[in-house]
């Protein structure tokens, strides 16, 4: 059923909430056309909207930019809620290294503000600058830099959220250490809008490193680089991130070292001694961004999966994935996870994915779809959570979204 709910919504939200365009890739992710998109301008408007949705039995799909939305089937009928108007930096105290901003503020804008004070948010999932703060928190994605800085979930200090029934909750705070009560903020981070809608978040930020050095090692086949990558990941010094990539331009090991000049020089020497290789050095931001962006060259492909196994199994994981002809790979070596961008012309997608799922699950690993063509039945290819985890997650879903208007776990 396709319904334009704008008329009904216009009696509860101001005119500014309407007229937003639907992001180009959103309909593909949702497998249906988007008829109604609204942009509430405050937490109160989000609450009114969700109360309305609960009363009317209308699904709500929250988006940041809408360009990185996971494939999912929304409830029917549904509306899309964009955070575009929740776009204010509410509080920034550089000396406290904390920032509170609306869910719709882009990471690019936050980065610009923070750079003025020599600070940054050290998370680097693919295309991070084109994500929003709300999107980042809702997906819980840290990128390979988590190795040096910790996961994003540990640096979200507080958030204002709206539960499925319109209840506003102010969770956590603005301080870096806080154990005042059960940490219900943690399951909100990474819940992809299934439990609540994040309208603003407070995050811990970090001083920009004096030197950000990229060490590069190239090879024709990614497997040649794996022993060095593992040696780096088990070395006595801990780089900020270790990434392996394979694209049509060849394979690369990328190691980022952060710190003062003398520390970075020393770390590089230690790593070269430990691994018995000489790395090519990229110190200028221009050189680096070229390399770092290239590993996500497949970001816009229609068929992409992400897989996980123990970090020590990364060699086997890559062996399994590179059997797919034309695949591009981007591996977080510390995390034991790989993004695989698959060619869209892949013959018999369903059986290819089933084969991958079987091989990866036999390793004890997991696989999930990041993007997938509309005709493929998505949930089949997710490694399911353990039964007990699923039951507990469903219990939380019932507690925070009793009418199940937000997405629906699945």
């Amino acid at each position, binding site marked *: 059923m396709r319904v334009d709910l704008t008329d009904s919504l216009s009696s509860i939200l101001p005119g500014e909430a309407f007229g937003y365009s639907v992001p180009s890739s959103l309909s593909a992710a949702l497998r249906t056309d988007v008829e109604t998109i609204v942009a509430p301008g405050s937490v109160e408007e989000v609450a009114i909207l969700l109360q309305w949705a609960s009363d009317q039995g209308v699904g709500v799909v929250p988006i940041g930019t809408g360009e990185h939305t996971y494939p999912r089937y929304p409830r029917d009928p549904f509306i899309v809620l964009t955070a575009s108007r929740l776009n204010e930096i509410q509080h920034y105290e550089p000396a406290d290294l904390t920032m509170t901003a609306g869910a719709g503020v882009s990471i690019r804008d936050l980065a610009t503000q923070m750079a003025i004070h020599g600070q940054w948010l050290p998370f680097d999932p693919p295309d991070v600058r084109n994500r929003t703060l709300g999107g980042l928190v809702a997906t819980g994605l840290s990128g390979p830099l988590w190795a040096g800085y910790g996961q994003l979930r540990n640096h979200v200090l507080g958030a204002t959220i709206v539960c499925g029934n319109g209840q506003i909750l102010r969770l956590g705070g603005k*301080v870096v250490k806080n154990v*005042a009560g*059960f940490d219900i903020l943690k399951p909100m981070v990474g*819940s992809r809008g299934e439990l609540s809608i994040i309208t603003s978040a407070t995050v811990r930020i970090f*001083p920009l490193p004096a030197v950000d050095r990229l060490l590069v090692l190239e090879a024709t086949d990614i497997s040649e680089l794996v022993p060095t990558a593992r040696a780096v990941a088990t*070395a006595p010094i801990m780089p900020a991130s270790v990434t392996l990539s394979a694209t049509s331009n060849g394979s690369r090991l990328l190691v980022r070292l952060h710190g*003062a000049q003398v520390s970075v020089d020393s770390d590089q020497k230690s790593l070269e001694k430990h691994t018995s290789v000489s790395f090519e050095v990229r110190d200028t931001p221009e050189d680096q961004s070229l390399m770092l962006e290239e590993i996500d060259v497949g970001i816009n492909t229609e068929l992409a999966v992400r897989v996980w196994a*123990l970090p020590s199994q990364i060699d086997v994981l890559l062996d399994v994935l590179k059997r797919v002809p034309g695949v591009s790979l981007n591996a977080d070596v510390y995390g034991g996870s790989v993004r695989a961008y698959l060619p869209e012309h892949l013959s018999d997608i369903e059986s290819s994915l089933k084969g991958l799922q079987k091989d990866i699950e036999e390793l004890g690993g997991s696989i999930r779809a990041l993007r997938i063509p509309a005709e493929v039945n998505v949930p089949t290819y997710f490694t399911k*959570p*353990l039964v007990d985890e699923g039951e507990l997650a469903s219990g939380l879903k019932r507690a925070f979204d009793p009418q199940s208007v937000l997405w629906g776990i699945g």
Partner: protein
Amino acid sequence: MTRPLPSTVVSDLAEIVGHEHVITDPERLLVYESDGLTAYRRPPRAVVLPSSTEEISAVVELLHSNSIEVIPRGAGTGLSGGALTTPEGVIVGTARMNRILKIDVENRIAIAQPGVINARLTKATNPYGLYYAPDPSSQSTCTLGGNVAENSGGPHCLKYGVTARYVTGLTVVLAGGRIVKLGGVGRDPYSTLDLVGLFVGSEGCFGIATEIEIRLLPITEGVRTLLGIFESVESAGRAVTKIMASGLMPAAVEIVDGPTIEAVEASVFAAGYPLEAGAALVIEFDGTEAGLDLDADRAEKCCLEEGAIEVQRATDPEHRVKLWRARKKAFGAMGRIAPDLLVQDATVPRTRLPEVLAGIDDIGNRYGLKIANVFHAGDGNLHPNILFDRQNQNELELVELASKEIMQLCVDAGGTITGEHGVGVDKRKYMTLVHGPAELEAMAAAKRVFDPASLFNPGKVLPDAEGEPSTESDKILAMGE
């Protein structure tokens, strides 16, 4: 008077864990009447000491099927009364669950039972060049299970983060004895909600962690420790703000104030701090050896710019221990000044430290109470210690009033009521200072998902009447960190 357990339950428990591991003798139960916060005391009906996940599961199943409340307990070093029993409760202790099950060097993870002492994990992993980062002050006695329950911090959490950052997976026993696995390295962390993150810090109210998967870090190459001596705690506080805003990332930044220095220098722990000092600032950097002197130089400059009288730098490991001594031995030394002390644990935004410290000083003066401050300044985590004599009833009441004013002061400055000690039974009365009814109900809803009948550690964390000490005479104010 605590009601004894029915004899059939005692014998069934003995069948599961062995007769010698079920304690019902009233004298032996006195050991378990409080945790590190001795303000709250009540002996449990019994203490059970299982040795495996399966035994814990069977014990919980038995107790819950008899509607008997389960109070989990690690080493009992907690400072919020989190391990205090309810009148009807049975303590399930993890003292016998003390094995490190796995050290996976390749993947830098360890799996440990909850009764493993925090420092033992680091000792066991050091030969592989690895260690466990969170280092609560009680790390030589506190357990990993207790750390998980409290989401414990420690001085070096400024750089490395608290327990939650290092717990990657859990096996837990939930209501009715159900054994559940949560998370784990190698699995898709996005396949479900962050249940591990929710369980960590749930203060024994959701269930008992019986196996803990922990991320380890490589041992750092070098360390530099500095001691800055200041005329006032406010100027030391300003130095902290300056250091943190300068882009430096110290591993630890701790303040010891004048009254504490006085106490330490008068004790067997004397560290040679000048008695006229208003505050001492301990700053530590760790990491790649080559950059450490530069970091230390920059921090020293910040201290001097904020009026430090002198800045010392450790020249060898013994000297480092000496510089840390006043911080580490402060609580023991305070016994010389007053027979009792109440430790508070609030966090404020770092930039508000100078004004909050001045406010605490003012509260102490108004109530005529001596307050000594020893705290994790780098992350704004204050530990004001109110010194008093519990025999003086009038002073006891003043301590309560001053304590509440300090909490309000910290909350008004944008802070919170506990940074690392947990809410337990003690800070429930302050929960409404930081949370509204909707937030408290949301926390209660999360507990119900794990523990629908509220049979795990009831009367903790959430501010209801359950589990309060039955009379004021149960409550004797606390001693120790």
